[in-house]
């Protein structure tokens, strides 16, 4: 297909199948057209009706999630969600997956994942102020894992650092179920004026459709279709479908777009992400109940002889589509010229509700725009209720508690991620109040106002019990923001699952969403944006169900923010919540006993709210000196984090090992000056919150776990050692 003049291929059932369209979907397409499609039309249909763009399997269930609230300005359905943070300011944020491309080409795949999500945020008129990423890799011993970790981390950093946004949080986990299908979920958070948000809905007939940004090449053709299929052993052959990122152009595009938006020239704007020009044009037209007519002769191309099919399906990066006020054309063009970017009028809005593509004087496509866009097919796929695991039988106490603690602290999932986040610029923009290593990232907005951001999910919980696991992902996000002193406001989600055509996978999806929805309602924590990534399978093996939750919270005074590190010798260590007892699906059971068994911990949402509100109150009143939530690794894991961060030891008074390693929910560790202890405990009792003193910050270079002493240097060596050693090989 190098020559535009060449005859287009004949439409055969094989060609239709290659485009990922099922026979019944193709029938439906022909029915809409009343004739056989052209090759370009088939490509457009394939791009719009694939799972990635159409949400055809997930829509029914997504509609049941809570998406409104008093601070929600814009919920799902736009480029990103928008929330009100007072003073006329708004936060624009979203998380999106780039799983398939990152597995095939880790550097560019992850880099363009970051680029894509940044664009989603600044398309709405917001300047990106923080980035996060949730990464999941196969087991460390898998031959591809090291290469993928190295490439993905470099790619995430390479794009974000160059673009100039601080990376303030994220997750890195390993599990064999990601061996053939890693997850790269990138989140971006931007700041805008609440009354200057830009949307993608086109308005007005006969207005110019403008192409902005970088030129179109042949990269990324069919990226979205690839992302909607399972992998097999030939995944590497799909490398040409991976896009190539250029963060410098993106930075220029950001500045040019914000400058243009400030002039009032923009009526509607949409970034070209998945399915490029096709998807952006169709979405803008379909949302605005308008037709769009494009003349591809005017599209800036970086390669010669590109066909209509290639231009419509290219996923070249750093591009935008905009509906412009015609009288502002000259001024707008000048702005883009100054930033060294393309600016081309490539079409116009019409009142026909048709999506018409012309190239070299020939109509290459003429499609009904609504049916391509917001009226794409929707399925109610069959699902079965996931089986719940049998209760966990007796677990024997470890024969060597010290060895168990060191093993846990130095395990791939529990050890320090310093090797990763030191490759990310966490400081640029000069507003970072808390960088990775704590419960949440904190970034100043202005004056003393700040927001906290976090990314969370515990996939092994979701695998064992999708409903409880879904609840837990939301609860942990809420807890992490609370632990730094922020009030959680809203979340974005990135739902990564296997093949939805399998009823047991669809069942996981349905139940995880049910759990998430319930937690969001109980915690007043609506979902304002998100992304669904299905077909995360290789050779029939699905990933662990991974509904990543990206949370944003608000803090009126960052000077009162809590951190995890122990501050002073003699401070009391308090446990908020019940004593640890639940070992099912715990990190201890997995890393020390080598078992992934039992049900995950139950999440009592009312208790979660009560305990969290209490802890946040203590932080804002300045009564505590350090706070950490209890999650993976239980009390032991939390205390080790706090001791190592502060280079101060501790003495713990604990009963049996379950108290140390149990992953019961709704719990926090905090420290306070000795004089505050009685006051805090009394307040807790008044509010009906469980609280107990479990130890003291000591001046010694060791942590005493109820009689078992482990030196800080040993803990530090285990905690800091694993990642660099693994990466060195």
């Amino acid at each position, binding site marked *: 297909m190098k020559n535009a003049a060449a005859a287009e291929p004949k439409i055969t059932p094989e060609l239709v199948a290659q485009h990922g369209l099922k026979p019944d979907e193709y029938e439906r397409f022909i029915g809409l057209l009343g004739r056989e499609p052209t090759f370009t039309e088939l490509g457009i249909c394939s791009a719009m009706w694939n799972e990635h763009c159409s949400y055809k399997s997930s829509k029914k269930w997504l509609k049941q999630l809570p998406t409104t609230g008093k601070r929600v300005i814009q919920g799902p359905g736009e480029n990103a969600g928008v929330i009100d943070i007072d003073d006329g300011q708004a936060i624009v944020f979203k998380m999106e997956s780039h799983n398939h491309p990152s597995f095939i080409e880790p550097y560019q795949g992850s880099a363009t994942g970051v680029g894509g999500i940044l664009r989603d945020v600044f398309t709405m008129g917001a300047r990106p102020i923080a980035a996060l990423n949730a990464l999941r890799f196969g087991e460390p011993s898998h031959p591809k894992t090291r290469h993928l970790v190295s490439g993905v981390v470099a790619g995430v950093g390479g794009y974000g650092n160059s673009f100039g946004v601080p990376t303030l949080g994220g997750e890195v986990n390993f599990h064999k179920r990601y061996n053939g299908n890693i997850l790269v979920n990138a989140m971006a958070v931007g700041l805008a004026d609440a009354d200057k948000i830009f949307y993608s809905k086109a308005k007005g007939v006969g207005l110019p459709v403008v192409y902005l940004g970088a030129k179109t090449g042949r990269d990324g053709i069919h990226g979205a279709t690839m992302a909607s299929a399972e992998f097999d052993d030939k995944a590497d052959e799909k490398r040409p479908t991976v896009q190539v990122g250029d963060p*410098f152009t993106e930075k220029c595009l950001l500045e040019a777009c914000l400058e243009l938006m400030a002039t009032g020239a923009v009526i509607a704007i949409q970034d070209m992400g998945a399915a490029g020009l096709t998807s952006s044009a169709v979405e803008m037209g379909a949302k605005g109940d308008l037709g769009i007519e494009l003349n591809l002769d005017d599209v800036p191309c970086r390669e010669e002889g590109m066909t209509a099919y290639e231009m419509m399906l290219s996923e070249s990066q750093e591009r935008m589509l905009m509906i412009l006020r015609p009288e502002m054309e000259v001024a707008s063009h000048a702005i883009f010229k100054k930033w060294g970017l393309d600016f081309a009028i490539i079409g116009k809005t019409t009142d026909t509700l048709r999506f018409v593509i012309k190239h070299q004087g020939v109509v290459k496509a003429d499609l009904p725009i609504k049916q391509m866009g917001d009226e794409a097919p929707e399925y109610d796929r069959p699902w079965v209720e996931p089986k719940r695991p049998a209760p966990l039988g007796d677990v024997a106490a470890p024969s060597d508690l010290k060895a168990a603690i060191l093993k846990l602290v130095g395990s791939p999932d529990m050890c320090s991620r310093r090797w990763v986040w030191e*490759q*990310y610029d966490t400081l640029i923009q*000069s507003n970072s109040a808390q960088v990775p290593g704590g419960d949440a990232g904190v970034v100043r907005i202005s004056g003393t106002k700040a927001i906290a951001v976090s990314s969370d999910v515990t996939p092994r919980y979701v695998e064992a019990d999708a409903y409880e696991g879904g609840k837990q992902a939301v609860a942990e996000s809420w807890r992490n923001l609370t632990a730094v002193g922020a009030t959680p406001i809203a979340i974005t989600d990135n739902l990564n699952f296997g093949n939805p055509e399998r009823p047991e996978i669809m069942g996981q999806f349905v139940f995880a969403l049910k759990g998430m929805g319930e937690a969001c309602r109980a915690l007043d924590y609506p979902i304002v944006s998100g992304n669904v990534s299905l077909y995360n399978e290789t050779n029939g093996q699905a990933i662990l169900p991974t509904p990543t939750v990206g949370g944003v919270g608000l803090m009126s005074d*960052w*000077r009162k923010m809590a951190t995890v590190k122990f501050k002073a010798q003699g401070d009391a260590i308090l446990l908020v919540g019940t004593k640890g007892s639940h070992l099912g699906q715990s990190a201890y059971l997995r890393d020390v006993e080598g078992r992934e068994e039992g049900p995950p911990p139950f999440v009592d949402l009312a208790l979660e709210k009560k305990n969290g509100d209490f802890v946040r109150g203590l932080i804002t009143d300045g009564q505590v000196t350090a706070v950490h939530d209890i999650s993976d690794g239980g009390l032991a894991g939390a205390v080790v984090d706090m001791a190592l961060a502060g280079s101060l030891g501790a003495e713990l008074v604990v009963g049996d090992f379950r108290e140390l390693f149990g992953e019961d929910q709704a719990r926090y560790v905090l420290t306070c000056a000795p004089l505050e202890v009685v006051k805090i405990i009394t307040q807790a009792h008044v509010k009906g919150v469980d609280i107990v003193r479990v130890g003291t910050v000591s001046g010694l270079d060791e942590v005493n776990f109820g009689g078992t002493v482990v030196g800080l240097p040993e803990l530090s060596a285990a905690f800091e050692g694993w990642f660099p050693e693994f990466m060195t090989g």
Partner: protein
Amino acid sequence: INREHDMARALHAATGIKPHIVWHTDTSLPDVDLVVVPGGFSYGDYLRCGAIAARSPIMSDVRAKALKGLKVIGVCNGFQIITEAGLLPGVLMRNAQLRFVCKEVKLKVENNTTFFTNRIAKGAVVNCPVAHGEGNYICDAETLKRLEGEGRVVFRYAEGTNPNGAMNDIAGIVNEAGNVIGMMPHPENMVEALHGRTDCKPLFESLLAA
């Protein structure tokens, strides 16, 4: 370039003077006492870092005025740019570990007679963040001997915190005339309570005395 606002904010806070931000295609500088070439990624740094920016139109004037004695500070990418422009000797290679690194390091102030260090005691060690992929300072033996002999190493990574493999732990240097300073670390990211420490505030205060 993308750290210009961090730098502008730090300069403004310390000096009370709002700096001019000039566009790369401008051809002449406004009438100023100091030029700061800030950090970032100029033109994406897809070629050798700083190489293209060193040849951008505005740099001709920066170079000409620096040679006449105008004070210039280059930080991070700015250090790379002024080195590429020939204002300072040596070159900044990829970090020895071949990875970008963002962390806090210890900086020893080796020379407190410069216009950027006169408010700090000689030999003092301050905390300062770094954030770069190419900060591994290298020069020929003769140049190194001169830099060390003439006290032109201004900042040195201390206490084993060299993050990039730079020769003699060199973090920042000054030219022979004393009016051009280049450094890899980012003092502008450690000047207020929000940053956890304010170790680098005295550097900016030095500018007022100079």
